[in-house]
């Protein structure tokens, strides 16, 4: 049989027998759509959950600080991380962000109109926000330009803003911190640093200029790209620090228990998504195989007749296989559009737009699966049909 005849006949048969094929077509359409949605959104949801878990738990955040000194011997701790050390840490593979802070022991006096309160102050750089994945609940967080310009700006913790201003919008207001005037640019969100909601944050450069007794940079926060990088980064830190300053005084902290828990939850999510996918694939495959086998049985006389007029075994084999492929591929095309709609709707419901790459990857996987499904599901029925004896087929009622 010529390939063009094979394709034409298969398309005609699939189209004209649409009533018989509607069941299997629906199975494939829904299976493919489900596959695309589960693959795209499943991974997207999984990534989103893992990222949220990791950020909430700060599982990939490493803290480097100096060991505590006996206060009687060293009333003022002057130890600091050199800029070269900080720059050196940034070169370790697997590190995403490095932020630094300086602190002032005790409280600062903050005044707004006649309202005077005492709060703790932290001087930070702009990368500090990124390491903690912080965002502004209102206004903005000061940035690199503010640090460069030594701008007299500040960010308030939520309780700080509440105590000073009540429900007023604080962005743009001016306050006095230890008798220096600062403009409030924003209020910090409540999630990223819930333990620092009664703090006031100043740019490290400005604080060192204007506020007395601010320490040098004595704490470094590191955010790793992923969990897998943590172990390697921790091992590299003492070596890098030692290149620029003595490393025997530093301590490294990692929330190991949180990391372990987050990993366990993420594994659970992954297993759930994978099981859902496996179930979708199995159901689709079994459905097609079953319906193709039934089709061979119901077309037994047709097979006998075709062999009686001269069809060879391979003609019958390829016709059944091609019909299976035409059916599965055309249904997959429809499933693709349904899946597209499904992804769009799901994305809008859960407010999480998956990356386009992930969607197209799912489409490629969906089509590959459909092709394999068409071949695998059509193979056994096609072999059965091609090996049928003419007499048995012609006598079949």
């Amino acid at each position, binding site marked *: 049989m010529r390939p063009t005849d094979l394709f034409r006949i298969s398309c005609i048969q699939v189209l004209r*027998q649409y009533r018989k094929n509607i069941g299997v077509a629906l199975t494939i359409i829904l299976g493919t759509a489900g596959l695309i949605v589960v693959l795209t959104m499943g991974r997207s949801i999984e990534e989103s959950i893992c990222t949220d878990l990791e950020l909430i738990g700060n599982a990939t955040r490493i803290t480097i600080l100096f060991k505590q000194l006996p206060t009687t011997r060293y009333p003022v701790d002057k130890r600091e991380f050199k800029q070269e050390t900080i720059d050196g840490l940034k070169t370790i593979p697997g590190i995403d962000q490095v932020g630094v802070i300086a602190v002032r022991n005790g409280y600062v006096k903050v005044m707004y109109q006649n309202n005077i309160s005492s709060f703790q102050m932290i001087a930070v750089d702009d990368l500090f926000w990124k390491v903690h994945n912080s965002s502004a609940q209102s206004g903005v967080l000061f940035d690199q330009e503010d640090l460069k310009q030594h701008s007299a700006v500040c960010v308030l913790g939520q309780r700080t803003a509440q105590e000073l201003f009540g429900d007023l919008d604080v962005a743009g207001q001016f306050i006095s911190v230890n008798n220096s005037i600062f403009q409030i640019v924003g209020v910090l969100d409540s999630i990223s640093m819930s333990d620092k909601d009664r703090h006031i944050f100043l740019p490290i450069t400005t604080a060192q200029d204007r506020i007395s007794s601010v320490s040098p940079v004595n704490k470094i926060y590191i955010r790793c790209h992923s969990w897998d990088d943590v172990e390697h980064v921790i091992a590299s830190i003492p070596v890098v620090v030692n290149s620029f300053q003595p490393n025997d005084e530093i301590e490294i902290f990692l929330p190991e228990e949180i990391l372990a828990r987050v990993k366990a939850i993420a594994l659970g999510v992954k297993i759930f998504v994978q099981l859902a996918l496996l179930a979708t694939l199995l159901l689709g495959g079994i459905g097609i195989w079953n319906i193709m086998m039934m089709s061979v049985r119901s077309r037994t006389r047709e097979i006998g007749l*075709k062999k009686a*007029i001269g069809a060879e075994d391979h003609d019958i084999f390829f016709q059944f296989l091609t019909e299976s492929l035409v059916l599965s591929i055309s249904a997959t095309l429809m499933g693709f559009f349904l899946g597209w709609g499904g992804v769009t709707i799901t994305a809008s419901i859960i407010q999480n737009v998956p990356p386009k790459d992930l969607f197209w990857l799912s489409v490629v996987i969906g089509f590959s699966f459909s092709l394999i499904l068409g071949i695998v599901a059509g193979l056994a029925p096609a072999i059965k049909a091609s090996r049928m004896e003419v007499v048995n087929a012609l006598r079949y009622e």
Partner: protein
Amino acid sequence: MSKQQRENTLIDLKGMTKSYTVNGQLFSVLPKINMTVSKSEMVAIMGPSGSGKSTLLFILGLFLSPTEGEYLFDGKNILTLNRGQQAQFRRERIGFVLQSADMFQHSTVYENVEYPLIYARSRPSERPERIHQVLQQVNLTNRMHHSSNKLSGGEKQRVAIARAMVNHPAVILADEPTGQLDADNSQQIMEYFRSISSTTDTAMVIVTHDPNVAEKCDTVLQICNGQLL
């Protein structure tokens, strides 16, 4: 057999036997049949149900292998053909018409007749003319693009004849071709067979119960208890 007879002989069965073993017991369906069919000859095979008529027809079409015997077709032993060669033989030398005039479902009259050409890998450009020609022989050109499901029994049988004819076979094997038709349609079908046989040199082997059909054939063979009388 004279040289002329030998040259004119299309089918020559010698000592053809077909038997089955069921539960260790041997059942003979056709014991040592001898039979010849000449080119353009119309042969009727008659006999009661279960006498082995259809089995003989299936052996002639190479759908069944005989247990013993020799089958010469146009002077060549064709029992040695492998599965692929048998299919080729059926495509090129045999046309087959069944009692129930089975049509390919969901296909038009044209497509039904086109199938043998497709399996014979004929050029698509040659097909319309050949299909038109055979449909003209059975007076069905006006129904060419109708769905075969909507045809009457007689029309379906004419389509089956056209389908059997389209590859210009040397012989048409028909299994009760008029079994489900009324007298008028049976008469018409037999006229088509006769016309085809005389104009194209095609032999006919027709299995039938109907004496009216048999009397229109050149030779009538009776099978009784597996014996050809």
